[in-house]
């Protein structure tokens, strides 16, 4: 029956371009300009899917974004398969492949439809009530079962190969919706010379004008478009949905660029997110047609009257040939008249109103259409397609005897509901207009205006809301997509759910992917009727973004693959790559973790690197350390106030290890601070803490200590930092350096000086994070790699060995040096981690000083930094493992600490660990137990230093 329901009057159909497509494997024909829905209707196909809960056969209800039923999966390939798209919004293209959903084994015969037979046993709240007991069954049986049957389409199994794009845009006026009102508003703004952006979700502008039969609509549309395109400051975006209204007139738009193309080129952008900031927003989103709620209103072939007009006038498609109309609004008569004109038979017009009057009603009478008023619908017949409708008059408030009338299509209309979704998202107040049976925009909080029917309907255009009088409530659907019936709402109110928010969640009405575009207002009407309260007293559920579903792809945008995050690399990165370094991520940085030689494992490489540092010399890239230059006459005073340490007595040319607390007394960061001049300090932070420390310092300077004359500048990336560590360090670098006497006597541990290395300006610090004689050489970043290579070259004779962050961790742990964020967790005081020696006790104030004298901060039972040695010296503990005083491994146990760092030390030939243990410093020598998955492992508590306890090596 190829296009048996098609005439040649579709105003926006190109009849010269025939398109072939398949639905559930069967081949059909449509035309350029069709949607999947219009093309299927033209072929007489009304059965498009099965309902969510009862698997009832379902057809097409609407013609646009409000479609609740006709969800299909559109396939291009395994990766590009889009489930749950509305057939009414799928533009037809040559070769389109669509599949129905939620049915097995096929759409016409679906086993799940057995649910219909037991629908009496699946009431509202069924899942909440049923799957409560026995408790153990939840994880084993219920959850897998529910996950199996829930949901509609199936997500694709392969990664999305499409590109998604993003754009920020600004305009004076953003017009959402390009119907009559939106186009007029855009034109007015354009004429004023303003920057205008106008968007519409459809593939062409025109809105409801596209659904009109008259020639004037088409002509005025064409003229407007022609004029609009002449303004250079006007941007027109079709296929673009305004999905969300964000504060301060930021609107999210999703532009679909390739969805309508038969073969999008590889690399084409599929969808684009527009983040539009508009000085003024004009909402011209129109109104949505309201269905009627009566028994059997969900059969395929039951459709909105306005949608039928769209199919007829825009696409040249007759939804049926023998049509019954159930109307609560004059629009239904217009549909009947136009369809009769197009050759359909109007079997009946059952008006649910008692005395309808109006222009179209008069025309329908004159055309001899069979009008009955004061009616209700008692049911419909047919299974995969509606076959008849039973209508009955209401006499004295009672349903009288019904009359069954044959038909192949039922059109219904309850009138229109202004589309206030975006207005409501903007936090505008809605106002109930009983004469329009609608919520309309009232006070807005943003600079916006609503125009056209989005602002409200004409005069007393109220139509009907709620349910028609009925006795059989179990097949009268309010929310098609979530299978919510009048009976469910009835039950919910009887069970005590009276707030609309509760009713919504209990029945799930309005919670499907169509967000209740067709159901919300009728739900309100039904509840109002049951509770005998006016609609405004029932409340209104929140309209949430997105208006229609949008893909995750647009939110990810460019942030994928190499551009997911910035990948920060140091000036020596390329050298490390050439040396086959294995890298690890440290915040956004790539840091060399170790440098395996030949087929070394990580443990082997780390052991070799550690031994080399202890025996001769290691070379380490410390460029990622945060660096801040503190300059000004009050620099020392500023540091006094920030750090726990005292700085006034630090002389020029010296360094000091500094500890930074937050105001609450907990350690936040640490680093070495060197004094370059009386008014200039070179300060280092942890790699991850660089931005945080600078922000905190700026905060105090700008908001608390404006009396201080001192300025901060980040120099993290100005300097490449090369750490040369080990007994041979001085021997290696001395020949390269000039301008500084680096002899042990002239340049002792914790010195800083400026000179040159290999001819390049350098800041040299004699510092050590390994416990060995060590230097950190700062050179301008461009020279980093060259100087690194010069040192590496010079060190060859001494066995210089590049080492990575893993060896660095082991070496510092052997010395008990803490790493902020590893030993500390934001609740450790300086004393907890053994750093109370750093506190400048004579200082009147520093950040955190007051908090540290609170009683709880001094408690002897606080967790303190200790060392752990396993009795079996080859066992390496797990970092994060909990510590217990007894071996008894039966809960409940008192946990007294946790392991913070744990490594195998090649230098010592055994494992070592650092831990935070309650009152640990008083328990050296005691045996504790570390809870590991295998067993409780006995350990001896020690001081947190395992190597060179006296600290003599650094002075070498």
């Amino acid at each position, binding site marked *: 029956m190829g296009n048996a329901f098609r005439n040649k009057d579709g105003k926006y159909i190109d009849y010269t371009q025939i398109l072939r497509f398949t639905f559930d494997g069967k081949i059909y024909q449509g035309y350029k300009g069709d949607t999947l829905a219009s093309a299927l209707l033209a072929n007489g196909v009304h059965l498009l899917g099965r309902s969510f809960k009862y698997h009832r056969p379902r057809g097409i209800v609407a013609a646009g974004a409000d479609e609740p039923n006709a969800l299909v999966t559109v396939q291009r390939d395994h990766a590009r398969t889009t489930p749950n798209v509305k057939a009414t919004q799928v533009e037809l293209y040559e070769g389109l492949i669509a599949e129905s959903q939620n049915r097995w084994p096929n759409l016409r015969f679906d086993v799940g439809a057995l649910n219909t037979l037991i629908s009496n046993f699946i009431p509202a709240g069924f899942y909440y009530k049923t799957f409560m007991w026995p408790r153990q069954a939840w994880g084993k049986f219920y959850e897998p079962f529910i996950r199996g049957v829930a949901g509609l389409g199936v997500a694709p199994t392969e990664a999305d190969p499409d590109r998604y794009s993003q754009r920020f845009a600004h305009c004076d006026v953003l017009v959402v919706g390009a119907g009559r009102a939106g186009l007029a508003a855009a034109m007015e703004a354009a004429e004023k010379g303003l920057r205008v952006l106008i968007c519409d979700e459809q593939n062409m502008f025109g809105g409801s004008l596209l659904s009109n039969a008259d020639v004037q609509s088409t002509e005025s549309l064409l003229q407007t478009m022609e004029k609009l395109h002449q303004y250079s400051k006007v941007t027109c975006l079709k296929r673009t949905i305004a999905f969300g209204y*964000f*504060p*301060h007139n*930021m609107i999210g738009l999703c532009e679909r660029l390739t969805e309508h193309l038969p073969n999008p080129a590889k690399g084409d952008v599929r969808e684009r997110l527009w983040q539009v900031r508009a000085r003024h927003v004009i909402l011209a989103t129109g109104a949505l047609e309201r269905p009627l709620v009566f028994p059997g209103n969900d059969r395929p072939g039951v459709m909105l009257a306005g949608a039928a007009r769209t199919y007829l006038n825009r696409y040249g498609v007759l939804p049926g040939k023998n049509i019954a109309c159930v109307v609560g609004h004059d629009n239904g008569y217009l549909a009947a008249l136009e369809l009769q004109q197009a050759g359909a038979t109007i079997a009946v017009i059952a008006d649910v109103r008692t005395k309808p009057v109006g222009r179209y009603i008069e025309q329908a009478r004159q055309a001899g259409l069979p009008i009955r008023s004061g009616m209700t619908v008692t049911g419909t017949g047919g299974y995969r397609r509606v076959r008849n409708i039973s209508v009955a008059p209401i006499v004295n408030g009672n349903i009288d005897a019904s009359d069954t009338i044959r038909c192949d299509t039922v059109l219904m209309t309850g009138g229109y509901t202004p589309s206030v979704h975006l207005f409501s998202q903007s*936090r505008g107040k809605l106002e109930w207009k009983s004469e329009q049976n609608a919520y309309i925009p009232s006070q807005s*909080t943003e600079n916006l205006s609503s125009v056209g029917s989005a602002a409200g309907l004409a005069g007393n255009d109220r139509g009907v809301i709620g349910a028609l009088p009925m006795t059989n409530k179990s097949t009268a659907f309010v929310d098609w997509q979530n299978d919510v019936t009048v009976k469910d709402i009835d039950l919910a109110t009887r069970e005590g759910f009276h707030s609309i928010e509760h009713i919504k969640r209990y029945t799930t009405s309005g919670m499907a992917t169509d967000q209740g575009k067709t159901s919300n207002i009728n739900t309100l009407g039904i509840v109002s009727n049951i509770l005998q309260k006016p609609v405004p007293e029932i409340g209104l559920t929140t309209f949430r973004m997105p208006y229609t579903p949008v893909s995750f792809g647009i939110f990810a945008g460019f942030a994928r693959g190499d551009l997911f995050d910035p990948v920060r690399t140091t000036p020596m990165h390329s050298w490390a790559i050439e040396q086959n370094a294995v890298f690890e991520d440290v915040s956004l940085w790539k840091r060399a973790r170790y440098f395996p030689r030949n087929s070394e494992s990580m443990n082997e490489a780390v052991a070799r690197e550690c031994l080399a540092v202890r025996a001769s010399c290691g070379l380490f890239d410390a460029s990622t350390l945060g660096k801040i230059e503190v300059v000004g006459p009050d620099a020392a005073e500023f540091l006094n106030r920030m750090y726990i340490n005292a700085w006034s007595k630090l002389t020029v040319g010296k360094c000091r290890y500094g500890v930074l607390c937050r105001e*609450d007394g907990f350690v936040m960061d640490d680093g070495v601070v060197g004094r370059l001049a009386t008014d200039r300090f070179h300060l280092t932070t942890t790699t991850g803490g660089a931005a945080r420390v600078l922000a905190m310092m700026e905060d105090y300077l700008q908001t*608390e200590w*404006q009396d201080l004359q001192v300025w901060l500048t980040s120099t993290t990336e100005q300097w490449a930092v090369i750490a040369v560590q080990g007994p041979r360090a001085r021997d290696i670098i001395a020949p390269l350096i000039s301008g500084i006497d680096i002899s042990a006597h002239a340049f002792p541990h914790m010195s800083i000086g400026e000179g040159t290395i290999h001819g390049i300006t350098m800041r040299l610090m004699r510092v050590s994070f390994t416990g060995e004689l060590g230097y950190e050489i700062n050179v301008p970043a461009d020279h980093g790699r060259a100087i690194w290579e010069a040192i590496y070259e010079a060190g060859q004779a001494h066995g210089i060995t590049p080492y990575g962050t893993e060896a660095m961790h082991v070496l510092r742990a052997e010395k008990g040096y803490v790493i902020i964020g590893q030993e500390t967790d934001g609740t450790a005081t300086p004393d907890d981690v053994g750093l109370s020696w750093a506190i400048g006790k004579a200082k009147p104030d520093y950040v955190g000083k007051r908090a540290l004298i609170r009683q709880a901060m001094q408690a002897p039972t606080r967790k303190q930094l200790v060392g752990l040695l396993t009795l079996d010296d080859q066992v390496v503990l797990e970092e994060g493992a909990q510590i217990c005083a007894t071996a008894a491994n039966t809960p409940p146990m008192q946990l007294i600490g946790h392991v913070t760092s744990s490594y195998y030390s090649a230098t010592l030939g055994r494992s070592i660990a650092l831990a935070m243990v309650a009152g640990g410093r008083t328990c050296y020598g005691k045996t504790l137990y570390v809870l590991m998955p295998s067993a409780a492992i006995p350990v001896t508590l020690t001081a947190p230093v395992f190597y060179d306890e006296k600290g003599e090596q650094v002075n070498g």
Partner: protein
Amino acid sequence: MLLIKCPYCGERSELEFSYGGQAHIVRPLIPSDITDEALTEYLYHRDNIKGVQAERWRHLHGCGRFFNAVRDTTTDHFQATYKIGEAQPASGAKSDG
């Protein structure tokens, strides 16, 4: 996404800013002198206003300045933004831009 008027740079996207919590909490001149109760108040107690509140922002990815703002938390609308050191404008006052 908010549009925030930096007192130095003018209206900019929220993406350029970082939030800094409640405004006008002054660090005690000599914290060591205050009681535990006053310390607790200073460190931990913050208003959580449904309505108009004064709060700190920093134009982090801009001029870098901290500043204060009066915002209605129910609508997200700013009534005013003003430089550090300036007094909080009377509530309800309209911003000048």
